[in-house]
């Protein structure tokens, strides 16, 4: 005998089943590119590896340049006393939010054939991408460094002045003293560089095998509907950023134990 209760159970079950079959269908649709993506990664696909390596080369170079330029700027902004210091601090803080496409456009204008640096023929080369990303990242590194060094300066100021350290010398001392905290600034810069699309797209041109990096490839392949490569790159990008962060965290923890 079929009761009302049985009927209700039947309806609930059937709706659960229909929902789960829908989920399965979706998972399958999503799964296929995921499997292909995994095969690309596991098989160390040459094209994929080339794109990843170029990304790393461009963004690490840009971050390195940004650190060499931005960290002394940040330290001098924290420690120095000169006219226009406050305005510069506001400027660098503001430039942290610089839109990549605008930086790309400016570097494009500089490097294009008719531009002031056109004679070097750098447009659509990895070098152009490094320049654009370095410009994008330097304010970030400088502003974050200034914050770290300003905090240290308030603690060390009297002692360093008492020992006779000039302000530039104090800035150098504090940079060295804050070397582990400053990994955060470098990391924020690298994170920005590696994840950015607009600037490298404009000045690099997304040329296959020459200037194609992870982010530009993801953008292109997604719009073409070729999801596996885009997904594989997306996964690598996330894994890369996460593991670099983990590494920096471990370094700081070690430094804290080692040096206090």
């Amino acid at each position: 005998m079929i009761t009302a209760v049985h009927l209700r159970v039947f309806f609930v079950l059937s709706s659960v089943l229909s929902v789960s079959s829908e989920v399965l269908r979706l998972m399958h649709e999503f799964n296929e590119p995921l499997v292909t993506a995994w095969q690309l990664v596991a098989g160390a696909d040459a094209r994929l590896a080339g794109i990843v390596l170029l990304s790393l080369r461009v963004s690490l170079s840009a971050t390195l340049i940004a650190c060499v330029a931005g960290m002394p700027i940040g330290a001098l902004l924290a420690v120095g006393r000169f006219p226009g210091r406050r305005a510069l601090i506001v400027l660098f803080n503001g430039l942290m939010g610089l839109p990549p496409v605008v930086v790309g456009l400016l570097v494009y204008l500089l490097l294009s054939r008719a531009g002031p640096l056109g004679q070097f023929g750098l447009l659509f080369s990895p070098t152009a991408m490094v320049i654009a990303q370095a410009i994008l990242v330097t304010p970030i590194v400088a502003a974050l460094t200034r914050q770290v060094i300003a905090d240290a300066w308030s603690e060390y100021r009297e002692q360093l002045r008492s020992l006779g350290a000039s302000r530039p010398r104090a800035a150098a001392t504090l940079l060295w003293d804050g070397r582990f905290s400053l990994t955060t600034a470098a990391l924020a810069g690298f994170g920005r560089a590696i994840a950015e699309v607009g600037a490298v797209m404009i000045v690099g041109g997304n040329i296959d095998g020459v200037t194609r990096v992870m982010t530009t490839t993801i953008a292109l392949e997604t719009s073409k509907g070729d999801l596996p490569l885009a997904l594989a790159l997306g996964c690598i990008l996330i894994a890369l950023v996460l593991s670099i962060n983990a590494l920096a965290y471990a370094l700081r923890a070690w430094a804290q134990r080692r040096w206090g």
Partner: protein
Amino acid sequence: MNAWLKLQHLGLTEGGTRIIDDASLSFAARRTVVLGPNGAGKSTLLRLIHGLLRPSAGELRWQRAMTQAMVFQRPVMLRTTALANVIYGLGLKGHAAKECEQRGRQALARVGLESLARRPARLLSGGEQQRVALARAWALEPELLILDEPTASLDPASSREVERIIGDIAASGARILMTTHNLGQARRIAEQIVFIDRGCIVEQTPVEQFFTMPRTEAAQRFLKDEIP
């Protein structure tokens, strides 16, 4: 005795408040302790003399230029070894690396920390850090050592050790100018007491006289409030 430093109508005003008000003083004693209640301007006076602050009125008249070093209430250690911290000040003065190392080790030995030379300075105890700070000051071989409440955050054993080192530095020829809230310590270290209250120099008296019969009522009140 000849005054090695004269303060003439020294004043410091910050944001409309007078922190040091028309201070005129002659320093002739080799060991002077500045006493006074919290907020009297003791630390500010030391910073003016050391040159960390610029007076807004009056002037400091040095008999001759003196090399100085200062030890603060809370020692500031760089993230490096104890030895490198001691050497840092010498390096700034432009001494050769080898001489720095030698003088640094010597200074650490004199504060009894030679065995900790290679240890990270920030991981030392508060008392040990203050001794490294004393070694750092001593290595500069200052003619005047200024100390701002050097034992304020230390336990009794560390305080005794720091006091012993201050005594040794004084014996090595440096003039001592310090503040403390520990009256026993002031009595043990000082030749002269300078008593200040609310930014004004109230009295300057030889130490025994200050503790037995201070000249001013303010100083009498200050001493009476001390818990025996």
